[in-house]
């Protein structure tokens, strides 16, 4: 039982990071119909930027805000310069473009920071542990879960109550009609990318914390988060959050309980297990939990 709780809490902490990443995908996809393969690089940028700022002596929480804003701004820049000219082209084309934008960003980040490993500084005790229901949980995990919860509530309010949130929902539902009603669709695109970028940065900061580290491979998180997006459904923010948490928990439970069953085949099996789950799941629900069913017309 204690092992189970332990795995559950670590899973939720990891899941909250997946949820942030997955939400970023969905926000961009909903507003601009772009599936952003460069998302992992935003996570990477956020993590490296944060470390440099904190080491440069900026107060932690201020550094976090600066990181989120800068990464968001980079996202906006990418949208404006590369993806705006691509509007109206097939999804496939934008996928390829974002893959290569990601490759370029990765090279740039390597050039600036180098690929060496580094730890993410935290204002609290980095390896501190607290006991919840008998399970030992890292402060870092608790912080990740709490921060994600706060951000998600903020997001909900933004989507439901704010002017730009309503604009985003309108754009998601029909771009041309939204444009006709006077919603600045271009600005909505930019804002969505800004949001997604800052979410990715936040995810990067928590992803880099102990027991994990920040290195040149941190962008791979985006590839691992794909199953969360697809299981939740491409168009659904709620689905992304549920998918993200589920993915984190399933992955860690698989590490604890499935890997040992499989012998040598089980080494690191938890890393591909989300994909196995996703493939099986999509066979029965091809549009995920809450994805929009495409209406087929000839």
């Amino acid at each position, binding site marked *: 039982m204690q092992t189970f709780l332990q795995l559950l809490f670590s899973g939720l902490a990891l899941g909250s990071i997946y949820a942030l990443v997955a939400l970023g995908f969905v926000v961009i996809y909903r507003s601009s119909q772009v*599936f952003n393969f460069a998302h992992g690089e935003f996570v990477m940028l956020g993590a490296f930027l944060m470390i440099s700022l904190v080491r440069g002596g900026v107060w932690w929480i201020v550094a976090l805000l600066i990181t989120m804003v800068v990464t968001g701004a980079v996202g906006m820049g990418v949208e404006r310069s*590369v993806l705006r*000219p*691509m509007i109206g*082209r097939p*999804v*496939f*084309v934008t*996928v*390829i*473009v974002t*893959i*290569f*934008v990601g*490759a*370029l960003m*990765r*090279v740039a980040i*390597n*050039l600036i920071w180098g690929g060496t490993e580094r730890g993410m500084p935290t204002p609290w005790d980095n390896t501190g542990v607290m006991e919840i229901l008998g399970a030992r949980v890292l402060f870092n995990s608790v912080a990740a879960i709490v921060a994600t919860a706060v951000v998600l509530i903020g997001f909900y309010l933004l989507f439901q109550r704010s002017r730009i949130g309503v604009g985003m929902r309108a754009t998601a539902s029909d771009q041309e009609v939204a444009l006709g009603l006077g919603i600045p669709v271009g600005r909505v695109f930019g804002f969505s990318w800004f949001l997604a970028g800052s979410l990715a940065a936040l995810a990067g900061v928590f992803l880099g914390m102990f027991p994990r580290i920040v290195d040149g491979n941190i962008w791979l998180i985006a*590839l691992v988060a*794909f*199953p969360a997006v*697809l299981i939740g459904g*491409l168009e659904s923010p709620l689905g992304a959050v549920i998918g993200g948490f589920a993915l984190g928990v399933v992955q860690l439970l698989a590490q604890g309980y499935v890997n040992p069953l499989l012998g*040598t*085949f089980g*080494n*690191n*099996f938890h*890393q*591909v297990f989300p*994909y*196995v789950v*996703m*493939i099986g799941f*999509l*066979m029965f629900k*091809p*549009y995920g939990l809450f994805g929009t069913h495409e209406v*087929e*017309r*000839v």
Partner: protein
Amino acid sequence: MPTKPLSVRYEDDLRLFASRWRQAGTALLVLAVLVYPLRASSLWLTLGTEILVFVVGAVGLMILTGFTGQISLGHAAFIGIGGYTAAILGGEFGIPFWLVIPAAGLLSAAVGLAVGPFALRLRGLYLAIVTLGLVFLVAHVLRSFPEWTGGLSGISVPMLWWFDGPVVSAAQTEILGTPLSAAIQKFYIFLVLAVIAVLFATNLRRSHTGRAMAAVRDRDVAAAVMGVDVARTKYVAFGVSSFLAGVAGAMFGWEAQFLTIDATVNLIISIEFIAIIVIGGIGTVVGAVLGAVAFVVLGQLADALLGELPLLSELSSAQRRTSFQAILVAIFLIVEPFGLYGIWLRIKFYFMAWPFRY
């Protein structure tokens, strides 16, 4: 200016090389390619062999993505299956290369057909991500059996002429005064494979199945309404594509002579093949060939030239290559969506209409 002769019989339409000029051009090209390995330096011989490997793989992806419109990020999985089949059959069992080729292709095609059911249910991004999952799964399986695949340390890929026989090696024969070295033999073997792949794809495109593929690509519901068997077409596309990818994987292994899982079965390789067909021109066989040539040659040039620039020389050669590819593909997608083939068509039409603009 030569024009295409008026087709008055069905046979005229069926001919691969419609005009005399085409035939002459093809003959010249064949001659040039045949002489190429005898005159090329060893660096350019290697590049030429690489091009042939990429041609076979790109033709495979072209059939799936270009003809049938199924986006696949899983090409690297099939490349890996082919490569490791060649490594294990050649290294462990001493099977000669001409038996390895069909084996690698068939094994890879079997896995490709297993993706078929997903392709029937999913489309677009969902399918792309599932095929990406295939890459991770294949990499995981390969890593799980280190006694066969060498695990993380990699495995060497021998290319044998005969059972337990000699590795393809320096023979005594000379052609045009050049001894027929192992590299040159490899080039000719790969050339035959590439030509077969290209001819096969060209003819496939003109066949009933090829037209069904195009219909599925343009709108699968409409195709189904018109009586095209969508399921069968998608299965054929996945099967043929992964067969060719498996063969390309075996060639890739023989060319590299050594495979590691991380360098073979990863997203980057899949993306490189997508880059090739985008640069070449999606939906045409010529595009796959042009793309492969441009990809290898330009990649080499970029590596050499960009290394001279101050900031970029700090990058590793792989990074330089990646960034060059990235910029090139972005430019093509924004400016010339039909790729090199599109540029070629524009040049051709310009001269056909010359001196008039239209």
